[in-house]
């Protein structure tokens, strides 16, 4: 159907549209018009992706000069594939409606592991291996060597692409990862490099966050995207953690040992080259005098995405003389390494800021700040000069060099924590140096500064106002949309006490309490008897889960539960977990029924959907607060308080509630789906917790479902499940739930919509005060 969104003609590939989709598009269009950033929350299963795509594509067609490119960032490969499929539907609809083929190019980009078609390389299991192997076949100096010695192995796909692939642009269309591979095989071109080359002229790119946020990758891939692009971060509720992770470095004793090996290899290689080909090192020396200047020229001609690792002023300078020759640099690395080793030998916890660390290193081993800043670049150059084939082996030394550069570049927003042992095992020495980023805005800042519109969207972004604060940007629109329901298909219940009136809570004081554990067990047992098919239960941490499950086993609760359903447990091991998931789904499918015990913030809570019978109920045991005794967290909280005026408690609650919302949101993946959401902790009933849940969940919590006992919960759940089992037919004619083209054009509905649309805006701004 065709829609008129404030004068913009939008093609929408479905016959009806939900009111919230319409409001979402309106809000999105205003953001694009204002050329600003936006934060939009809309529940999953309401067609967020297609609304986004159809509006932005329509906008792109209407104003080709103002918006040139859509960069759609998602989290996982399956999500990327889903987006591409929606996009394909949309483009086909365009072709059908307009009657002519449009020259639209959209493609997905992923790592080499997902795109490689080389028979040997692609059979490797780990991403790092594939990258390393690919590099050893395609690096420029390897190819140069091959010209003199043709017997060396090569990748025919890359050679072919390099020879002809760049001249002919990829024909228009929508390409997912498999399409790219097919295309690559057909033409004999490397799909990975083809995709990376083609994003320059593609209209829509779908890829992972890391290509924009991780400075190491962003520099390679996304450097040349034009300023007039629209960037969308989907499922962005964890975007601050992604930013922080991409800037943080953890160094263990093992890293240092491997680093030592790397340095030794480098030294011997240098020795060998010196004997055979001294001119090469001379050439490198000369380049280093000039080299970085070239990069700065490139940066000026067009505003490239600036690399947060390498600040502008560095480019103005030549590499300092103390590390300019290879031997000096190796010496420098050795000293740095020894220094780190000595620091790790400590017996007590040390926390210091970057300037303190720099002062100490200067005093102890006379390393200046300036050469440290060039460390990463210098190492890169050295590896290139030495023609090292397999870069993957040098990941340890690369890590150290990044650390050196980061620590000397940023004086604010980072902290260094050295822990001689883990908190759980205070007797076993396992020293770790955390170089931890505390400011999420550092990594994302270049993105906000560079692109005219950045949209942050997810099903759970409440409370909205905190994201602009921790990411340090000023949005033009902030809105939260609710879900219009044909029937109340979600049933959030807050269980505050057991049948014996003992308050249920996972808080620290009562977490070992026998009565609480028993009541949690009873809750699970009773739920397992009345909920059909699948139940997903979330605990606050692995440790807590282990304790409780062990206790349940002793009390015989597990045995009783197993009469109703099979039990599966998530573990930190990815392979085990995916095995458990597979069996869990099988048990749901054939009527045996199953329970999955998993952990908030784990793999299951983030990426796995439990549609329909795979998840009829989700039980959240406790409030998933992050481990508050962690020093890294404490440092970050302090920083947030000082820099952004966010109180510790506010942030902790916000973080806990967004994870709780993520967990319970797993069960509702659309309007035909239904599920129970059981919050088993009395603290959820408090307004400060409840108010931080997404609006679409909050709306369904009535006063009567605030502090239920297990008995009452069971009765309400039974009733709900029976209601939901009644035959459900989508009422397409009813204007309240779905809009058809005819009723959309009636002024009546539009009036209704505009009222509805205003409301979220007010709530959005209201939270800001």
């Amino acid at each position, binding site marked *: 159907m065709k829609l008129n969104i404030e004068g913009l003609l939008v093609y929408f590939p479905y016959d009806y549209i939900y009111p919230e989709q319409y409001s979402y598009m309106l809000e999105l269009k205003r953001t694009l018009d204002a050329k600003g950033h936006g934060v939009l929350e809309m529940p999953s299963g309401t067609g967020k992706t297609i609304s986004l795509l159809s509006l932005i594509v329509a906008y792109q067609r209407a104003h080709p000069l103002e918006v040139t490119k859509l960069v759609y960032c998602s989290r996982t490969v399956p999500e990327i594939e889903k987006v591409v499929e929606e996009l394909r539907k949309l483009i086909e609809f365009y072709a059908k409606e307009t009657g002519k083929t449009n020259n639209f190019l959209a493609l997905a980009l992923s790592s080499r592991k997902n795109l490689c078609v080389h028979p040997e390389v692609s059979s490797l299991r780990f991403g790092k291996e594939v990258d390393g192997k690919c590099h050893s076949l395609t690096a420029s100096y390897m190819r140069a060597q091959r010209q003199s010695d043709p017997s060396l192995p090569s990748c025919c796909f890359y050679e072919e692409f390099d020879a002809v692939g760049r001249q002919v642009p990829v024909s228009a269309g929508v390409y997912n990862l498999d399409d790219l591979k097919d295309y690559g095989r057909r033409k004999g071109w490397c799909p990975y490099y083809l995709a990376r080359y083609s994003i320059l002229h593609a209209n829509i790119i779908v890829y992972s966050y890391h290509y924009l946020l991780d400075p190491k990758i962003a520099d390679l891939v996304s450097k040349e995207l034009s300023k007039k692009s629209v960037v969308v971060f989907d499922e962005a509720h964890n975007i601050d953690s992604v930013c922080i992770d991409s800037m943080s470095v953890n160094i263990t004793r093992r890293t240092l040992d491997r680093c030592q090996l790397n340095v030794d290899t480098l030294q011997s290689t240098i020795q060998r080259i010196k004997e055979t080909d001294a001119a090469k090192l001379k050439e490198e020396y000369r380049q280093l005098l000039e080299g970085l200047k070239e990069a700065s020229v490139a940066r000026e001609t067009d505003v490239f995405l600036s690399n947060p690792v390498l600040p502008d002023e560095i480019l103005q300078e030549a590499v300092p003389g103390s590390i300019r020759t290879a031997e000096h640099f190796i010496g420098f690395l050795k000293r740095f390494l020894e220094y780190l080793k000595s620091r790790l030998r400590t017996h007590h916890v040390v926390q210091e800021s970057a300037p303190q660390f720099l002062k100490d290193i200067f005093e102890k081993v006379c390393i200046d700040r300036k050469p440290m800043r060039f460390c990463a670049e210098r190492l890169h150059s050295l590896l290139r000069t030495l023609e090292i084939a397999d870069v993957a082996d040098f990941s340890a030394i690369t890590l150290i060099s990044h650390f050196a550069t980061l620590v000397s570049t940023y004086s604010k927003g980072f902290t260094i924590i050295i822990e001689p042992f883990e908190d759980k095992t205070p007797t076993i020495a396992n020293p770790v140096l955390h170089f931890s980023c505390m400011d999420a805005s550092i990594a994302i800042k270049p993105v906000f500064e560079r692109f005219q519109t950045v949209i942050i969207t997810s099903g759970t972004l409440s409370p909205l106002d905190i994201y602009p604060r921790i990411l340090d940007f000023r949005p033009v629109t902030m809105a939260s949309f609710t879900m219009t329901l044909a029937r109340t298909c979600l049933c959030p219940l807050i269980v505050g006490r057991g049948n014996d009136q003992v308050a249920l809570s996972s808080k620290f004081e009562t977490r070992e309490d026998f009565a609480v554990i028993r009541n949690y067990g009873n809750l699970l047992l009773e739920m397992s008897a009345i*909920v*059909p*098919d699948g139940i997903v239960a979330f605990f606050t941490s692995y440790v807590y889960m282990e304790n409780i499950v062990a206790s349940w086993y002793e009390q015989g609760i597990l045995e009783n539960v197993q009469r*109703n359903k099979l039990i599966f447990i998530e573990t930190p091991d990815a392979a085990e977990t995916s095995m458990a998931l597979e069996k869990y789904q099988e048990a749901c499918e054939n009527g*045996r029924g199953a329970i999955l015990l998993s952990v908030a913030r784990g793999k299951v809570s983030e990426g796995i959907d439990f549609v329909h019978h795979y998840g009829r109920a989700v039980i959240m045991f406790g409030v998933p607060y992050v481990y508050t005794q962690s020093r890294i967290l404490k440092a970050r909280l302090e920083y947030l308080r000082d820099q952004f005026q966010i109180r510790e408690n506010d942030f902790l609650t916000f973080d806990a509630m967004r994870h709780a919302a993520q967990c319970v949101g797993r069960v509702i993946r659309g309007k035909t789906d239904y599920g129970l959401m059981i919050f088993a902790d009395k603290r959820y009933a408090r307004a400060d917790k409840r108010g931080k849940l997404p609006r679409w969940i909050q709306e369904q919590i009535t006063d009567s479902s605030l502090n239920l006992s297990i008995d009452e919960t069971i*009765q309400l759940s039974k009733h709900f499940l029976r209601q939901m*089992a009644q*035959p459900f037919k989508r009422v397409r004619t009813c204007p309240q739930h779905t809009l058809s083209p005819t009723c959309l054009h009636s002024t009546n509905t539009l009036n209704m919509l505009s009222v509805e649309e205003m409301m979220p805006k007010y709530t959005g701004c209201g939270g800001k005060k």
Partner: protein
Amino acid sequence: MDEEPEIAKRWEGGYERTWEVLKEDESGSLKATVEDILFQSKRKRVIESHGQVRLGMMRHLFVVVDTSRTMDDHDLKPNRLTSTLKLLEFFVDEYFDQNPISQIGIITTQNKRAQKLTDLSGNPKKHITALKKAVDTTCIGEPSLYNSINLAMQTLKHMPGHTSREILIVLSSLTTCDPANINELVKTLQGLKIRVSVIGLSAEVRVCTVLTRDTGGSYNVILDECHFRELLMLHVKPPPASTSSECSLIRMGFPQHIIATMSEQDAKPSFSMAHLDSTGGPGLGFGGYYCPQCRAKYTELPVECKVCGLTLVSAPHLARSFHHLFPLDAFQESPLEELTGERFCQACQGQLKDQSVFTCPVCRTVFCVECDLFIHDTLHCCPSCIHNQGMS
């Protein structure tokens, strides 16, 4: 007999919110809602007249009753099992009333096994006695969908192709314990054209959804006892026959009831053939129905002759089955205010007091709610139309 089991005490049962059904009107009175609930419950029968379609009039139906642990639940009064069996007795009665030439069999499942309570037969008494006896069953273990369907299938697959083969499962448990993959069984069922329907007592279970969808049956979950009864009643009506089922002419005998008394000269008491293999009842007596083909005697109809295999029915039986083919159209509901003329129901001659009245679309006669229900459920024809036919 009236000794209720200990656990069935009201205060030990679950926590219910019975008051939530009631809502106050503007004046704060509950009267209107109560009346509305009563009216709705009267009106609740679902009229889905499927018009002129072929119906499987000769039905072979196996009812599977879950007697697993969950049947002890008290959300139906006094517990699920007793309530279910009571309703099933009623169902069996209705079933034979509406489908006199069909047969029924009962299977129970518990403790991972399935057991035949009664075999396929057309005698309601036998089934009802069995159901009454089953009240004392102890409910243990898990049910097995696979085993019970398999058991029913073993018998049903030998039934002639022109009859409809059906399984109705009353499932209380949310889990099933199967010896093999049930999806394979579903394929076999599809091949045999056996229709499986499920009535769930607690919630929607995925495997039942798949089972009923793939075999063409229906799947419903009850809300309360009334709803349960309605859902059972939906299965009283014969389902539309699948177009691929065979058609054949069936030989039927219409035996006359011959009454003989001791006083008559040539009267000799004789055994009913139906009692030969059953132990209950004396079976010896005067008079009865004599098979027109072989003169075997039966005391009850309908029955299949044990000697020559002829289906014996009485004419009213056939006539009653006949009405399913030509269902009476639903009457039009209209508010009382719109009615002009006399406010009397044409059937019972009572004054029309409810807020709506019902008009026969053919003869435009007006009826009250009770009479409308009676006409559609029992008479199957509009008395006024018949009356008019007689006049002309």
